[in-house]
């Protein structure tokens, strides 16, 4: 320590170096060795305090251990059982409550086939009475969903397209920056045939027999949508399922020739655009009482019902492509 009064800076550096909690005066007192007795006393007090702390710590540890033992014992025997029983009771209660609620709602509905139920109003009466005359479709359902309520169906097809795009964005595994396959892609390729034998004869023979029939049935359902039950969505789903079967039997190499992401995008985009434009035209002429060049034709003919046949084809193509792309992306993350 300096004999003269230290400057603030010196004091500060000294304080930093010593890092003592005592100030100068106290240090001096200590250095003098002011009171040995007091020091001894202090030491005794400190030791007693330390002992007390140690005892307290030991008891705390013991208590905690005992508590832990008790909890562990409880969960291993009674607790787990109680929790499981409570959980199951709660599940049963929730199920029964939801079932009862739904059954109550069903009881409130008008009876099946009741002539006075609110469903049988003038809207459905008009659909049934004038539907064939106005739309030219023998199948009332096709007349409804592709003529009276065609914009609903456009929305549904767009939802499918958007879902396929979202799946594509999430699951597609791309080539890397240099156009080479990434490790992920190689792993996916290796995992692709994990449980399935390649070129399975039974599957290939049955697929060769079934796929043409399935595709033909789907095409029939689409083209006959305005005459018989079915339409774009059902036919498209059947064609998609047939394509999936073909892919399973013959692998991605066989289907990749006709179907890839580019074809998918072009087909779905063109179908949706055609749908939107055609329906815009028909709604525009219908709302403004203009003469439409599309005539309903003679009901019952294959080329009748105006726009319903081309719209069915458009919807069918969107649905078939979407089903196939879903499958391909789920399976391998690519085509």
């Amino acid at each position, binding site marked *: 320590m300096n004999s003269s009064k230290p400057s603030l800076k010196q004091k500060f550096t000294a304080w930093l170096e010593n890092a003592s909690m005592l100030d100068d005066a106290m240090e001096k007192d200590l250095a003098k060795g002011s009171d040995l007795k007091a020091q001894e006393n202090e030491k005794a007090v400190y030791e007693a305090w330390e002992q007390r702390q140690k005892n307290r710590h030991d008891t705390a540890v013991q208590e905690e251990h005992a508590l832990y033992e008790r909890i562990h014992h409880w969960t291993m025997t009674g607790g787990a059982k109680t929790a499981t029983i409570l959980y199951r009771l709660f599940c049963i209660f929730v199920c029964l409550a939801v079932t009862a609620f739904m059954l109550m709602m069903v009881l409130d509905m008008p009876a099946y086939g009741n002539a006075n139920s609110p469903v049988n109003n003038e809207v459905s009466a008009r659909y049934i009475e004038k539907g064939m005359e106005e739309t030219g479709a023998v199948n009332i*359902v096709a007349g409804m969903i592709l003529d009276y309520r065609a914009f609903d169906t456009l929305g549904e097809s767009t939802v499918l397209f958007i879902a396929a795009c979202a799946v594509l964005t999430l699951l597609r595994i791309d080539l890397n920056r240099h156009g080479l396959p990434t490790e992920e892609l190689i792993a996916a390729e290796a995992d692709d045939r*994990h*449980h399935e034998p390649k070129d399975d004869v039974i599957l290939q023979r049955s697929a060769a027999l079934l796929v043409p029939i399935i595709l033909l049935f789907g095409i029939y*359902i689409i083209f006959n949508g305005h005459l018989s*039950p*079915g*339409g774009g*969505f*059902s036919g498209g*789903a*059947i064609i*998609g*399922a047939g394509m*999936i079967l073909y892919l399973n039997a013959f692998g991605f190499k066989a289907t990749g020739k006709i179907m890839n992401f580019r074809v998918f995008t072009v087909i779905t985009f063109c179908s949706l655009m055609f749908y939107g434009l055609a329906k815009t035209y028909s709604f525009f002429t219908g709302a403004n009482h203009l003469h439409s060049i599309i005539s309903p034709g003679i009901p019952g003919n294959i080329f009748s019902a105006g726009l319903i046949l081309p719209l069915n084809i458009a919807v069918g193509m969107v649905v078939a492509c979407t*089903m196939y792309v*879903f*499958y391909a992306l*789920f*399976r391998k993350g690519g085509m």
Partner: protein
Amino acid sequence: MTLFTYVLLGFLIVSALCVSLFKNLLTAVVVFMSYSLVMSVIWMLLESPDLAITEAAVGAGVTSVLFFITLKKLHAIEKRRKPENEQQ
């Protein structure tokens, strides 16, 4: 309703319960397929054949196939091997 419809509805309820109670996911998906198939027959009986076609194609066909693929990705259909087979 005829007896046939009641049998189908009973099967529907039983298979719906089975799907949620089966521990094996592969079995659950197969039962779900049969549920869709019975449902499509019921749609047929309710005089809505277009729904029946769609249910058979989407419910029993495409959805189950997507489920199978998901199970495969999750390695949920690994065949459980016995220890002595692993040693060999």
